């Protein structure tokens, strides 16, 4: 974990409202693994005291990439960032996704920008598996080719039916779970809205599979100091308590989460 001042190498439209931000943060890039995130200080967001967290979409010796969608004051202000702008990152933060068990096949479930860390995970995965991508509209279904080109089985759903099957991602998952092809030893990975994570967790648990959920909580410090981002969990001894999504997560096994 370090504070790194870096420059924007590229900032471009990725798809629909989503943007891709490429940063020459090589220190963080070298250290980052899938599931980790950076805490980004948005330039020229006067009066803002908080950074904003973004998952690593790519990380390597040249730096990092993130995908984001403008949804509020901060991400809106990010739109005006340009190549060459300097900004400050803290990262890599949190724990990455655990590696998929040797004999298991990875099953990924993504909603919205949640596909970004999963695409990074697929890149480093020992073998391809299956990914369910859900979105409101076709525009929200990102990175399909990232997976296809690596041999993944990609199942798309959109709520308006503009791409793939119509409905929520759970519709596709449930259909698949009914089918014989779902049999076998699986390890689940999911990133998206809470509703999606919860649904994935329930389905995985019902089958006795691990489901690694990447949680999205409003953050203050990003490093574990402020206790803003806490999530209620069930401890091994049955008691309940808080964990810090930023430091103890953002990835947690589904059965530990108290929704």
């Amino acid at each position: 974990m370090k504070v790194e001042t870096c420059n924007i190498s590229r900032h471009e439209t990725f798809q629909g409202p989503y943007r891709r931000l490429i940063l020459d943060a090589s220190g963080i890039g070298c250290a980052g693994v899938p599931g980790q995130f950076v805490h980004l200080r948005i330039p020229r967001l006067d009066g803002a005291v908080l950074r904003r967290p973004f998952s690593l979409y790519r990380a390597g010796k040249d730096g990092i990439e993130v995908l984001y969608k403008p949804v509020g004051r901060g991400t809106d202000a990010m739109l005006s960032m340009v190549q060459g702008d300097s900004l400050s990152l803290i990262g890599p933060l949190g724990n990455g996704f655990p590696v998929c068990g040797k004999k298991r096949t990875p099953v990924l479930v993504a909603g919205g920008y949640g596909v970004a860390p999963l695409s990074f995970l697929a890149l480093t995965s020992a073998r391809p598996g299956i990914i369910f991508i859900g979105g409101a509209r076709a525009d929200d279904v990102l990175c399909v080719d990232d997976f296809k080109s690596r041999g993944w089985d990609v199942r798309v759903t959109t709520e308006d039916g503009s791409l793939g099957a119509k409905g929520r991602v759970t519709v596709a998952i449930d259909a698949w779970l009914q089918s014989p092809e779902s049999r076998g030893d699986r390890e689940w990975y999911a990133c998206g809205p809470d509703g999606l994570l919860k649904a994935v967790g329930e389905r995985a648990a019902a089958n006795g599979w691990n489901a690694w959920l990447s949680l999205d909580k409003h953050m203050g410090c990003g490093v574990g100091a402020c206790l803003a981002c806490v999530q209620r969990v069930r401890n091994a001894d049955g008691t309940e308590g808080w964990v810090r999504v930023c430091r103890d997560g953002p990835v947690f096994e589904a059965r530990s989460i108290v929704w």
Partner: protein
Amino acid sequence: MVKSSSKTPDTTAPSMAVDIGGIRMRNPVMVASGTFGYGPEYADLVDLNALGALVVKGIRIAPWDGNPTPRMVEVPGGLVNAIGLQGPGVDGFIADYLPFLRGYEVPVIVNIWGRSLDEYREVAQRLDGVPGIAGIELNISCPNVKEGGLAFGTQPDMARSVIAAVRRATRLPLIPKLSPNVSDIRVFAAIAEAEGADAISLINSYPAMVIDVRTRRPVLANRVGGLSGPAIHPIAVKLVWEAARAVKIPVVGMGGITGPQEALEFLIAGARAVAVGTANFTDPTTALRVRDGIRDYLAEQGMHDIGELIGSLAT
């Protein structure tokens, strides 16, 4: 050159050391309770030994769960938090964090709170004599817990009893942290001094509320929280100025420091040390920038010792 072994003193580097009620600090820039965890969280990013002192998150006699989430919301020029003092309790702190902190030279100040006079006294007693603790900051001003907290800090009699009780329970330097939510801060500063406090610190975050107009609900699960950050800085300067003139014990000033400028205001107003809170989230190196900025300012102004700056306000 009589003694060849003598080091040539660096006549240009002003002395930054301060003594806060018996706690000797290399420089006057601390980090504020609740914004820096217990030390390890920021240790990768900040050399803890470069801090004037490290004030850990508020702890009580036993572990505490704090408030439900959401616990924090950003507002223009600050944030409102309602963490609710989640913490491992005094034994958890001693077992899990103190060994780590003992590996550093930075003075560690433990911020304590309780739901009753007894709880306050017990946690102070438990810390007394524990190696590695430089002092106690007595939180009588947290806006985010129903029991105790703010009530102790806004009623003179309650403030008096809790400070007196804790004073009897510990030989450690004792720093009551005053609430800004009072009509006359001098009353509370004077009470602290009279009851034997070694210093006072102020201000805690300011009671506040944010409403989501879409859902027509409070954004924070606790409904109300505490406003901190640049927004409260001019309020804090006024209170520090008043408090510093009301007592002889040292004052630690905080509230909205983001760089040397705001810290200098506190020192000029009479604070002997300052603490960086919310700005740690924005830029974890803030305390170091503040320290360097104060040093540069002293040099520019031809001052040799931070003491020349403290309370130098010309009115």
